[in-house]
């Protein structure tokens, strides 16, 4: 089943890096996004904020980045928990956007 997301975004807020009981790094953060997208044949402005999480080595690479840093994200969506169905973007890979 397809569940793949690519997003250019700006790091907005970061929680402190934490470890799972088994010792994997976890970084919860949020990003903002602003762009122009096509909808029903015409362009429109889009902006939103998204909750993200990264685990393991990706989390450790993201951790030192300052808020305001622009990154290109690749990942998938999952529910926050069984109780809360709000979406969280799980980041599998990212790269810095220069310029």
């Amino acid at each position, binding site marked *: 089943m397809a569940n793949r997301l690519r997003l250019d975004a700006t790091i907005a807020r970061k929680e402190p890096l934490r470890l*799972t009981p088994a010792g994997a790094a976890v970084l919860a953060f949020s990003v903002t996004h602003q762009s122009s997208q096509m909808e029903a044949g015409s362009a429109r402005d889009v902006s939103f904020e998204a909750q993200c999480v990264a685990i393991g080595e990706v989390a450790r690479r993201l951790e030192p980045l300052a808020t305001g840093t622009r990154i290109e994200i690749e990942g998938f969506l999952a*529910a926050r928990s069984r109780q809360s169905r709000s979406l969280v973007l799980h980041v599998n890979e990212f790269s810095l956007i220069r310029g």
Partner: protein
Amino acid sequence: MPRTPSIARIALDVPIDTLFDYACGTPSPAPGSLVEVPFGRRRAVGVVVECQERSEVAADRVKPVERVLEVAPLPAQTLALARFCADYYRYPLGPTLATILPTMLRRPGRGSRPRLWGYRLTALGRSQSAAAVPARAAGARRLLALLTTHELVDTVQARLVYRDATRLLKQWLDQGWVTREPIDPSAPTQGVSPAPPLPVAPLTPEQEEVVRSIDLRTPGYRASLLQGVTGSGKTEVYQALIAEAAAAGGQTLLLVPEINLTPQLEARFAARLPELGIVSLHSGLAEGERLRRWERARAGAADIVLGTRLAVFTPLPRLALVVVDEEHDPSFKQQEGLRYHARDMAIYLARQHQVPIVLGSATPSLESYANALAGRYGHLHLRARPRAAAPLVRTVDVRGMPLEQGLSSELLSAIDARLGRGEQSLVFINRRGYAPVLFCSACGWMAECGRCAARLTLHLKAQRLRCHYCGHQERIASRCPSCGNQDLHGVGQGTQRVEEALVARFPAARVLRVDSDSTRRRGAFADMRERIHAGAVDLLVGTQMLGKGHDFPRLTLVGVVGADHGLFSSDFRATERLFQQLMQVAGRAGRAELAGEVVVQTEFPTHPLYAALADQDFDRFARLLLAERRHAEFPPYAYQALLRAQAHDQRDVDQFLAIAARDAHAHADGVEVYDPVPAPVARIAGHWRGQLLVQARSRPALKRFLAAWHPLLTRRKAPRVRWFLDVDPVEL
């Protein structure tokens, strides 16, 4: 005419409720003698229970007694106590005796019984030691001082002043500083004091009144419940009574609940009553040491025998007084093999010897409390706290409150204030480990033990998931085995998590965690106690290990976390237990000159238990619980026995208990038979466990019923089922 051999009927440590007949010479050995006999292909040591003219076993099948061991026979009273115990708890006499006698006493084979050595300082030792032993070797110094003041020092005495004395004495023996000689265990032992003797504080009028009403000069049995709030000086009362008994030539048996408390109490009594010989007996002793001490006690050489539950069976020829301290403590009930209750055996012992018994507690068991209310026991009170005020107890309603790793801002700021004043705080949480559950919030999975019907506890420090029931441990799952999510969480609080939270919040404070994990190493707990006393600790996190009897003068705040789950247990004793525990732990706050405060975090602030705790009113809550028990017809208004069964296959358990229930109904005259149910933890280490409760209005009715029912159970063939009867169970 052939002379009929005299027959000795012998109790052997085999799980069959019968005595074994052996031929013995004349004169026949006295009852209570220890004998070595052939049993099957091995030799065994047994106890002669009685001798008679003939056996019902064919004469050619009766084997002879091989030898009578060279130890004095058990006194008739000890044998009678063992018989009563075996009969009451439905346990065979042979294994009963095997439980209560020191293992070394009944080991077959020759000699090799450990000797009691006495050490004497030589002229060489006298001249050389003073310069050679440095002043900072405090233990060695104390040992030297003891050898100087006492002509002959035995190892029991030596270890009282210095834990590692035996090793040092051997070394000094090699150096020629001391000589040694065997000591007759019945030779009277002299008191030794590990520290400079403490002056015995004069009794308060209230304490004096208690001592007067126990009135040791009047002979005969009577039981008294001494209900004294924490800090009211129960120990001072014991000391006065012990001194009085000893002055009249009597021995005192003092039972205490916990092995951890014995060295502390032993030192305290030795310092306060330096002229009295004291012997402590507990399960932490090496077998040889236990036997030596046991022989000292039975020979009448010790004035005070201080011990945990098993000490109740020590023969004491000069017994004049029995004291059970913290009589409500569940550890007085043995939970395996011979499931006796040492407090109840102590009552029997006192009655048998016709001596007074004192049951002491700040929070008596409801059984003893009801006996006192009914006038069967004397009811004595110590209400004043000569050295402290009652702690101020308040509850913090944590419903909907943001918590910092389970700790409320009220508790944290109370701790902060103590840190500022250089006082100690204790956070009491009766759950060890980091978190009781490892949880996947994505799918709801929780880590469970593969062999038990129980969750695994997260131990972050050791990086392990551990089962607190069967001891199984495994690596912490790195991903959820059900959905693959790696972001697993520990849910709930354990001591380690609270410790971590306190360290993070108060980085400058010295935090110490005291639970059975952190005290596993031998002597670790004693070291920790010393550090706490020395003020080298600011913040304590601990389980009920810290609740009992420890007097920490700088401790002024107790925080209680996670106690609520004790309010809603299926065991009707859970609230009684929780209340006792919280009263005890609250009593830790502010014992000396500093006022104490207790902060209880709860989601049920209006529960009567917390209200009674806040008022420090044991009596009110005890009466409330007793009314409930009377209404529900539970102990102490009923007498219970629990049949516990376990097997690999659940069907075997169910089938056995169903048959047992049928058998029970057939004899249930005046006895209520409940339905078989799964145990609270239905499977442990791969064994399914079930139980069947029976209950009677009177003790004799229960005893009669068990005498009829138990043999039926024994005859039922259920080879795959392990089962036992627990008479007067303290846990359901």
